[in-house]
């Protein structure tokens, strides 16, 4: 990766191929600006940010609700429902991609159809991330002491109140973990995006990269500059939250 970032400063692609380990002969920022305009990174990055943000909100919201219901509230069929939701963990995405596409193609949306929209990507990524999110969040919430919500109930909280004032603040580490994993997969996803998105205006970053693969030659120096720009935000995010990730996976961190 370090190699990638350093190589991004090299002026031509020939230099990258012939002297891969050497430092750049002259450090240049030109690649970054050129790559930026060529791939329309400003626009595609905006799309990626919208999609990733929407996915994060939908996944964290729905999954934390469900995890609370599945871990704290008692209702018939609860455990069977949980196992059903976990089935999503082992289902391969390729196994249901075609009907999924057909299903989105028949829904009209904003003058076009739902398959060619950012909303479709948000919905699909959320659906795909949901089982893992529920699994981790539920494991975490089961570990939280029940005496806390009992006392809150005595103080007059309903299920919603307990959820928002007690459980949600305590599950912050688990939420951070799931947030990171969800954001990573939405940011990097390629297969669904390439199949669903036709309109160049709403392409996410991973599709924007394709403009670097010319018919005859690939502009490696631009490509590498663009790759560096894609990787760095996620790396920064992970470096910020990495301690939270481990504590989020350590279920039941709160002791009575």
């Amino acid at each position, binding site marked *: 990766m370090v190699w*990638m970032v350093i190589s991004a400063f090299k002026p031509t692609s020939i230099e990258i191929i012939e002297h891969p380990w050497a430092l750049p002969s002259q450090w240049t920022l030109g690649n970054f600006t050129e790559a930026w305009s060529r791939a329309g990174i400003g626009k595609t990055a905006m799309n990626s940010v919208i999609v990733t943000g929407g996915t994060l909100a939908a996944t964290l919201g729905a999954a934390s609700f469900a995890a609370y*219901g599945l871990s704290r509230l008692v209702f018939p069929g609860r455990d069977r429902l949980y196992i059903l939701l976990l089935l999503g963990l*082992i289902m*391969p995405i390729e196994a*249901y991609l075609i*009907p999924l596409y057909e299903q989105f193609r028949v829904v009209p949306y904003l003058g076009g159809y739902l398959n060619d929209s950012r909303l479709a990507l948000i919905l699909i990524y959320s659906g795909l991330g949901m089982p893992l999110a529920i699994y981790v969040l539920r494991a975490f919430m089961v570990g939280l002491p029940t005496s806390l919500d009992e006392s809150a109930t005595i103080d007059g909280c309903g299920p919603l109140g307990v*959820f928002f004032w007690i459980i949600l603040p305590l599950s912050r580490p688990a939420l951070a973990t799931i947030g990171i994993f969800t954001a990573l997969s939405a940011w990097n996803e390629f297969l669904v995006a390439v199949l669903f998105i036709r309109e160049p205006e709403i392409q996410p970053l991973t599709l924007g990269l394709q403009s670097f693969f010319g018919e005859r030659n690939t502009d490696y120096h631009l490509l590498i500059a663009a790759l560096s720009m*894609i990787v760095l935000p996620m790396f920064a995010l992970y470096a910020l939250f990495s301690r939270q990730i481990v504590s989020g996976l350590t279920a039941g961190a709160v002791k009575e």
Partner: protein
Amino acid sequence: MGFFPLIAVILFVVLPALVVLWRAVRMTRTYGAFERRVRRELWGYMFVFPAYLFFVFIILIPTFGTFWLSFKVPLGQFAIEFRHGLGNYVTVMRDPNVHEAFLNNTFYLFATLIVEVLVGLIMAIILADDRRGFHFFRLLFFTPMMLSMVIVSLLWKFILRSEGGLLSHTLNAVGLSSLADTPWMAHPTFTLPTICLISGWIYAGFYLILFHAAIRRIPPSLLESARLDGCNEFQLNRHVTLPLMKDVSIVCVLICATGAFKAFDLFYVMSPSGANHTEMVATYLVKQILDYDDPYYGSTIAVLMTVVVFALSLIITAFQKRTDRLEF
């Protein structure tokens, strides 16, 4: 598809909702009033409802759709759908490419168990302490997970290029030029193991994080008392740490094994075009859809793949129940 989604919506959304409501009404009659207990149950369903909707529309209904499609074949150039019964399944069973793909997948499964789970476990044990540099290393090993598959494949293509690639360049520089000409990606014998290694490079960090979280959960008092009893570091790991991590290990094996049969993107972007020896079930499936324009046969393969993954996870979870869980 026709009326299929409508039937599915009635089956998975309307029907369960009616059952829940009916139960609530009946309970209200029995207990006389819209009582606390009824309200509590309804809250439970309401909390799970949004996630359930996502699950039904994104995963469950399309899965049944695939099952539906797998019984059809395209008829002529107008692709009129035609009920074909079990014909596709007979073809799948006789298709030598499918056999090859399943064999490759099995090889990949065992290879990834070693280069991903085992390596991740060993790294987690080595990097278990909270020393200063170790946090940085854990961060470093997790980095490949953050890269998109497109980026990973591009990087490795740079590294493995036969002329002027990073690897052959380096091997030449240190005097191992006989090794430098190994056709890592071009020769049938090398391609699959090479991709397995790359896969290990990507995912070992992920298992490292999972195992690390498990190690952190072990109460320090246990390790303390084992040390007082005269354990050395090796015995400590063998007799205390590993048995306590059985649960997590089985989850990891489950993720790895089911993931191995789902493997797609790495192989799709890395394998040289037209190569058969790296064909995976998933890549063969997608090729059926994109290249041969036969989504019905693809769906049949998908159903087969789902059945295998399902059976595999049943076996592994059964193993989990048999091992007695250690409480701590």
